[in-house]
Each structure stands twice: as C-alpha cells, then as structure tokens.
C-alpha cells in the first residue's frame, strides 16, 4: 500500500477524476445493495412474472429485432469517428489557415457522399 501511494502523482489533473470514479462506483453499487437490503420481500409468481399489462406472456422476449437498429449503430460509428477527427482540427483551425480548411472540406465532402448514399439507399427511412 505504501508503495502504491508513492507511485500516485497527486498533482496529476486526472487524480481528482480517479477519486470521483471511486466515489461514483461506491455510490452506484451502494444504492443497488441498499435497495436490496431495505425493502420487504415476498415471492409471488404473478408478481415475479414478465409484465405485459396483465396478460399472460405469449412468446419469449428475445424476439427478432429490426436490422435498422444495427444499421444506425454502424452509421453512428462512422460519423462519430468523423467528429473525433474534427476536434483536433477545430482547435488548430486558426494556425492551419486556408490549407486546413480545404483539407477538411475534402474530408467532410467524402463523408457527405457517404451520407447521401445511405440516404438514397433508404438507410435513414423508418416505416
């Protein structure tokens, strides 16, 4: 433990984040355990069954889901990565000047072609 403390750089800007992480985890886990500990518990088959507005469940819950959601997730990865590339560029924009601006127009332009393609293919439509 003493060895561990010596390796911690307390002046690091991320040190408070670490403290916060510990506090947040303890709070979250503690709340779940507290909730388990304080409430009464009486088993009842109806109460513990799946909630479907009072009707007996007809089919298991693991139904097939629309492939649309998968498509949205893929598009998200694409465009969020784009956003991540834009951040450092945005911070340095003034020092990059016209060169950086044109570079980014090309980069965003290619991604826009992708968006238009997904749009035209109907990936963004919900029926």
């Amino acid at each position, binding site marked *: 433990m003493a060895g561990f403390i010596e390796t911690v750089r307390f002046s690091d800007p991320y040190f*408070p*984040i670490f403290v916060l992480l510990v506090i947040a985890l303890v*709070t979250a886990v503690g709340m*779940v355990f507290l909730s388990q500990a304080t409430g009464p518990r009486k088993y009842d088959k109806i109460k513990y069954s*799946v*909630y479907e*507005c009072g009707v007996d469940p007809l089919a298991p819950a693991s139904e097939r889901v629309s492939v649309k959601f998968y498509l949205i997730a893929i598009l998200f990865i694409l465009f969020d990565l784009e*956003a991540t590339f834009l*951040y450092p560029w945005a911070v340095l924009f003034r020092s990059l000047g016209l060169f950086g601006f044109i570079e980014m127009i090309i980069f965003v332009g290619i991604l826009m072609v992708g968006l238009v393609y997904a749009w035209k293919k109907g990936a963004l439509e919900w029926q």
Partner: protein
Amino acid sequence: MTAVLFLVVVALARIAIVFSFCFGLVVVFTWAERKGAAYIQDRRGPNRADILGFRAWGMFHPLADALKFLFKEDFIPDNAQRLFYQLAPMFAVAPVLMSIAVVPFGPDVTIFGRRVALQIADLNVGILYIFAVTGMTVYGVVLAGWGSGSKYPLLGGLRSSAQMLSYEVSMGLSLVGIFMVFESLRLSRIVAGQGELLFGFLPKWGVVVQPLGFILFITAQYAEANRTPFDLPEGESELVAGYHSEYASFKFSMFMMGEYLHMVIGAVVVATLFFGGWQVPFLADTGFVLPGGASVPLPEILVIALRTGSIFLKSLFFTWLYVWVRWTIPRFRYDQVMRLGWKVLLPLSLVNIFATGLVLLLLGK
C-alpha cells in the same frame, strides 16, 4: 506531505461541493417538474407532504419519494438476466456522476496562498471527457432493456439506444464551431474566452458567435436525454415505461436520478459553452467595466460571488427550460425523430462548421 494532503482534501472538497450543487438541483428539478406541470395545466400540483406542519409548497415531496422508494420491495423478475439487470441502474447513475468533473463553477480563487480552480479537474480534453463519460449511459439503457427479459423494455431499450446514438453524432458536430472560435477543448479556456467583448459592447458568448450551433446542440441534448419532444423510449401510451418497465424500488429511482442528473449536467454544459459560464457581462476581476468607459470597482469576494451566482442562475434557467419545453411541445413520432436527427441536424451541423470556418478565415487575416 502537507502538499499531498492539501491536494487530496481540495479534491474531496470540490467533489462534495459539486455533488451537493448537482443533487440540490436534481431535487429542485423533480419538484419544479411536477409543480411547473401543475401550474401550466392550471392545477395545484404536489402540496401534501409536510414536516412538522410545514409544507413549503410541496418541496418535501422529492424527499418523501426517495424514502418511499427505499422501502418498497426490490424484486428481480424470474425471467431477468440477473447480472445485467443489476448492472443497468449502476450504469445509469455512475457515469453521469462523473461527467460533471470538468465544468468550471467560477474563476480561480486564492485559498491559504494557493491558487484553487473552482472545478474538480481542469482536463485538456475537457468537453471530450464529458462526451466519453455520458456516452456510457447508453450501456445502462441497453442492459436494462436486454436484462429485463421482457418485451416492452427490450423495445424501449433498442429505441432509446438508437436515438441516443443518432443524436450523439450531431451533438458532437454542433460543438466543433465553438472549438474553432475559442481554440480549445478546455472548458476553463472556453469560459475565459467568453469574457471578451465583440465590437466593444457585445459579450462574446457562445450563443452570440454560434447561434446555429446553440440551437443544434440544445436540440440534440434534449433527444440525448430522452426528453420531450423526443421521449419516445418512454412513450407510456405504447411502451409502458420503456426500458425501466421491470424495475421497482430504489433501482427505478436510480434510473430517474440518472436521467435528471443527466439533464441538470446538460443544462450546466449549455450555460458553460454558450452563455458564458461564470462570466457576467462587463464584469472584470476588479469590478464592472462598462463599454462607455465608466467603471464600478467591487471587492474581490463580491466579484467571485457574482460569478458563481451567475452560473447557478443560468443552470437553473436551463433546467427550468426542460420543464417548459415538456409541457409546450407534443411528442414526435419515432420516424420523425430519426429523420430530424440524420437528415436535418447532421447536415446543418456540417454546414455550421463550414460557415464558421469561412467567417474565421475571412476575419482572420
């Protein structure tokens, strides 16, 4: 050793202050939500809970709710996947608790001869940290939907995660203009930049230099927080309560708490990025300096109080805005929500980046 102790104590003290600020706002928010809804609909709203005869306009209802939740039966449905079911509420609360860390609540102050920033951590990645951490709340939604082993939560969880992902893109892109103007991701730097004046009289707030970015960001924020008019995941007329249908007791209130904390932090972030954070227009370190040249000197302690008070009031206003919008705008249909996200907000935020770049280039040289 005293230096280390000082750092630890300062870290803990900051966390305690910020936590009490946020939880305080959450309590006020849950109360304002019900009371505001009531007054907008011409009702009286909650006014029954009392402590020793004091009712305080129903202010004790959030407290009564928390206590009630704590002593309700906490059951795990037979059909649930126990691990995921238990993990989901933790994921709903822990990330939002962490995301407040980088918001500056005031200028640097001097305590015992040391400069202390009124912010838990001044990270150079700033806003990126907030996005990274709040992005984790999607796991809570997905795990709750999947782990409950029931149809409504599954559908609600899927809808919710698809919606959050869709709007996260335009939320991230709508802020790029702000970074271009203030040349930093560091929130303390962005707030400091907003203290300048444009044309000698207009505060250089984010909303002034990035009006479109502000509208895009706040729209995406509402959708990200699953808030009306985008509260489809919890559309009670079709999905009961969405992804937390199968939750009861304090676990249910953890989802609620996470959601409200998320909104409170969203309000604080909007105030920080677009409304000057702790800046008060024309207030310099020494007192008011008006554009005409007149100045009103103020003691340092009063300046700091005004500045921390200003971010508090701004956050309070944007927290109230959630309630206001909720009872003003009806709910969208799901296809409309997705269309707005991908076909309107995303292209508009790219146009905003382009326009900002053009203006900066023309002005810069």
